[in-house]
């Protein structure tokens, strides 16, 4: 009853999703946090930031991008060091399971949670905060590729970054500030063009800013493009930079990923 690698990857993904959905704190934290943030911020701030665009719409697109980053980057960069410390990785390494199956399982899990998360955020935003669903097939297409490419970049960077924390205990402390700083400088909480220029330039190196911008092109009126830093949505650049981060993340994963905690004897 030898099982094909593709089938193994599918089962690994199901096992990962099962573990996630069965740990209540993880589900609540990952799924509910962006929703709560939207409820709070959208209730406090509802100024018009441009003709026909209020802060809520702007913030919601940022939170969808943040949700994708949380699922892909934050959760993996924290979860993998924990698994490394507990010897889960070592145990997989001792079986004939092909290495890539482990990563495929993570990707499967991230994709599953990502889809659920985006669906919840969209439902809440459309239901309670007057967000318009994408108006055309073209916008839906943009929504799909920005989300998939953004989530891929975050996932790969999350796996790569999982080698940075020295152990499970420090993982949350190391990863959370990185994610939080990126949110502040990438125009999630504040309108991006209101930020100091140097901060915009720093943010433009990282994926989150481009994910936010890509999603704004989907949910905000086209007239708002003029208010973006370049006066347009720059979708070509969004695709290019997110793809570049996928490559960087992948290379880092391959070169630096370790299956054992190197600081343990």
């Amino acid at each position: 009853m030898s099982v094909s690698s593709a089938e193994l990857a599918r089962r690994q993904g199901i096992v990962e999703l099962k573990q996630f959905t069965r740990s209540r704190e993880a589900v609540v934290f990952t799924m509910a946090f962006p929703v709560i943030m939207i409820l709070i911020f959208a209730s406090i701030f509802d100024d018009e930031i441009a003709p026909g665009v209020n802060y809520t719409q702007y913030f919601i697109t940022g939170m969808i991008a943040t949700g994708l980053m949380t699922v892909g980057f934050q959760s993996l960069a924290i979860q993998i060091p924990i698994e490394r410390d507990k010897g889960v990785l070592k145990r997989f390494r001792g079986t004939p399971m092909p290495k890539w199956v482990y990563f495929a399982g993570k990707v499967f899990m991230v994709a599953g949670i990502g889809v659920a998360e985006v669906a919840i955020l969209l439902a809440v935003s459309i239901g309670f905060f007057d967000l318009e669903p994408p108006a055309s097939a073209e916008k839906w297409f943009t929504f799909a590729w920005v989300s998939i490419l953004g989530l891929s970049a975050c996932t790969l960077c999350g796996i790569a970054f999982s080698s940075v924390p020295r152990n499970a205990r420090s993982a949350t402390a190391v990863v959370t500030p990185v994610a939080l700083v990126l949110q502040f400088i990438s125009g999630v909480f504040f309108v991006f063009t209101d930020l100091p220029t140097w901060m915009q330039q720093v943010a433009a190196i990282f994926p989150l800013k481009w994910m936010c911008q890509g999603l704004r092109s989907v949910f905000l009126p086209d007239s708002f493009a003029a208010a973006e830093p370049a006066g347009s949505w720059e979708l070509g650049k969004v695709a290019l930079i997110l793809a570049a981060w996928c490559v960087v993340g992948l290379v880092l994963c391959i070169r630096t990923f370790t299956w054992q905690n190197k600081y343990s004897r």
Partner: protein
Amino acid sequence: MGNDFAVSVKGLRKAYGRTVAVEGLDLDVRRGEVFALLGPNGAGKTTTVEILEGYRKRDAGEVSVLDHDPAEATAAWRARVGFVLQGTGEFEELTVGELVHHFAAFYPKPDDPDEVIARVGLTDKAKARTHGLSGGQKRRLDVALGIVGRPELLFLDEPTTGFDPEARREFWHLIRELNASGATIMLTTHYLDEAEALAHRVGVIANGRLVEVAEPSRLGNRQNAPATVSWRTPEGTVESAESDTPTAVVTELAARFGGEVPGLTVTRPTLEDVYLRMIGAAA
């Protein structure tokens, strides 16, 4: 090397920075035997075993495990080797059944997962999440995951640490069964009674070297060591005598007491006595 040895090691060396963990270690484990590696903490046991398992790179020496170099482990090789490591892998939210079935799928010729669960005595817990298992049950789950692929060679790293005496007996029984069904077993342990109960041969490791390899009853020339004969005198005190000819001493005593000798014991040094002397001498 050839086919007689499941594990063959020559001149193994491994250092962490300036600390030399293993220095010139030679070791052979025959196919079909239970081999126990004994040694104090920090003697190099775990380092040695991790090199054999393919988890660690060595600095020097020749290593062959099932006729392959573990430093270049392939999936086919891993399918033939099982591991029960120290404190590994908790998949807290999965059930025992889900885990063993999942791991079985990694191997080309796995055992029936439910049968493996029964063998380690976890059938009652098959539907229980693993975070609710006791320490001993978790360890038995570790063993189930280590043997579900039907390994030719099974590594057990301090497998019964933290077990109560009854759980340890059950565990020994399981190991003997596995060995009887053809698996070569290499275990490390702190417990000398465990080594004595299970192992065909024991190796004592101290300061990164293998000090001696022998059958448990012959370690340190134990079988030829002077015996201690002790008995109770009519006044009620205990006397003892060391002798190379204890039978003669007992015969003499029997004559003196006119038959039964009160409180008679004849002992040789225990494995523990011999072991402590060895690691003491090596330090």
